[in-house]
């Protein structure tokens, strides 16, 4: 899949302190009538970024920050809840985000994000509170050491499912791995048929 290997990301944060940011906020359903995964970045958080007439709202975090320098989204708890739409991580990635940090991230979103080069980072309450209250901070997210660093200090350690981590570190997608299991799959089918 088309994403770069992920090792260490040093970038500034965009903070959305709100809890329960669901996939309908990340990408409203009316933008799902697409047959491609490209171009969704323009619609990310659309209703937060644009007014009724489609004009960019200002101030608006997303419209005021440069996606080249602000690749890390820090969000309130239960981020990405709701639908299984992979359009949500596609849109965040398309906009320029490479990592999302929260105290807890919804299961399906996490799984989808990991498959698309967007790192979901779950940190403890203390680090979460610190990041939420320090918007625009430059931080480092290290996928090899599994740490989040603010200034000189490692403020959090996080876990990433081992397999997904390897895939991300190497920029490979898991379909290749599954395709290598063809013999086992055929044996299972023969056994249960």
């Amino acid at each position: 899949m088309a994403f770069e290997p992920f090792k260490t990301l040093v970038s500034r944060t965009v903070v959305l302190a709100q809890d329960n940011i669901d996939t309908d906020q990340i990408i409203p359903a009316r933008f799902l009538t697409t047959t491609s995964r490209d171009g969704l970045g323009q619609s990310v958080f659309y209703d937060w970024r644009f007014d009724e007439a489609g004009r960019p709202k200002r101030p608006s975090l997303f419209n005021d920050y440069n996606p080249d320098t602000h690749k890390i989204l820090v969000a309130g708890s239960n981020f990405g809840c709701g639908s299984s739409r992979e359009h949500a991580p596609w849109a965040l990635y398309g906009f320029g985000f490479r990592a999302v940090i929260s105290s807890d991230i919804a299961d399906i979103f996490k799984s989808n994000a990991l498959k698309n080069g967007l790192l979901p980072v779950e940190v403890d309450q203390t680090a979460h509170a610190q990041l939420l209250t320090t918007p625009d901070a430059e931080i480092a997210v290290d996928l090899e050491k599994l740490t989040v660093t603010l200034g000189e200090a490692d403020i959090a350690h996080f876990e990433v499912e081992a397999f997904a981590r390897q895939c991300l570190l190497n920029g490979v997608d898991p379909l290749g791995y599954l395709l290598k299991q063809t013999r086992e799959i055929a044996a299972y089918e023969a056994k249960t048929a």
Partner: protein
Amino acid sequence: MSMPKSLFDKLWERHVVVGETPDAPAVLYIDLHLVHEVTSPQAFAVLDGRGLKVRRPDNTFATLDHSTPTLPANAKGELPFSTPGARRQVETLIANCEKHGIELLGLGDPRRGIVHVIGPELGLTQPGKTVVCGDSHTSTHGAFGALAFGIGTTEVGHVLATQCVLQRKPKSMRVIFDGALSPGVGAKDMALAMIAEIGADGGQGYAIEFAGETVRALSMEGRMTLCNMSIEAGARFGMIAPDETTFDWVKGRDFAPSGEAWAAALAKWRGLATEERAEFAKEVRIDASTIRPMITYGVSPDAAAPVCANAPAPRTAAEKHAADYMKLDAGRPFTEQEVNRVFIGSCTNSRLSDLREAAAVMRGRHVDEGVVALVVPGSEAVKRAAEAEGLDAVFVAAGAEWREPGCSMCIAMNGDAGAPGELVVSTSNRNFIGRQGKGVRTVLASPATAAASAIAGRIADPRPFLCDMKEDA
């Protein structure tokens, strides 16, 4: 002695192709893959890009529901697609199914419907199966004692190519409902009461088994409603052990085993139930006899309360944010809050029993003049059955619209949507900001509560309406 096993343990074990290790998740075999137009095009594109074929087209079924219009075709036979994109999605799925030899229950097919309604209806969903779909409400199928869960589009591609997904086994949780439900209270109210209790992330990382006498007493439709809402508590999996109610429902359906195969299947299915003393990482008990008709008042499904309560004053920043959006008057009874639109439908509540429940309230009454009410059956089969018993006539006489099957206002991507600022009482599953149209304020409720609200023009407790019915009889 081996450890006592839960339903979930058994379902999981039986589908492991390659076991889980610290380095890699389990390779889990999928028996039934349901596909729809919105989350599949990019997956088929990956397959085509790599020159791969669909491994088991015979275990894959597709339908059109999400961006499909619920208004009939015009005189020229053209469907009123909301956007060229919606039409393209439908055409893309038709082409992909043709190319890969997948059975499509497409436009004009008498078996078409919402993916989670038709799977069970056709007998495709069976106890003991693994079922996936690129839709988070796939947990619905767990009502049959199946291991059913929503997947993302990349995983849709994995299943198309290999019939497997990579998945680590989640922790297990049991939610036990005891006690008899009061009249006018149903599975949707149970689901909302549970989510209010454990929170929108209370089931995160867990597979939920619903158990207890109240669950056993539920019809299959009710069980599906309950499992459907598991994801609104954050749980990807929701399931109920199969029993006679399940077997009766499955028996005789198009894809159900028959003859000797039925007897063999039954023997297998009877062994699926959770064994005594099986352990759960988390257990919650709910006294179902205390549940009253429920509604949501916020923008997350756990903001749920009895319909007879007052709108609460927000306490936290998140609640304040939700209250600012919902604009319900704090301290005022919910039943005094004006309703603009009512939606009866979605994979949560669009089955025949749901429509009967709504019709029982609407029969002989009229929708308030300030309210637009939409009734959207879950499938062509539900539509036919409802029309055969005259439910459509009840709705139409009451001033509601009777539509073609589809997801409709549950996700509002086919053109069916509320207008900005409208308050919509909806039998669907998500009250997220903008879910039913930009600026729309969604109140989730049961079919009876939604129907009562349509009649009253305000959020309404369905029980008085149902009492009247009894007095009339």
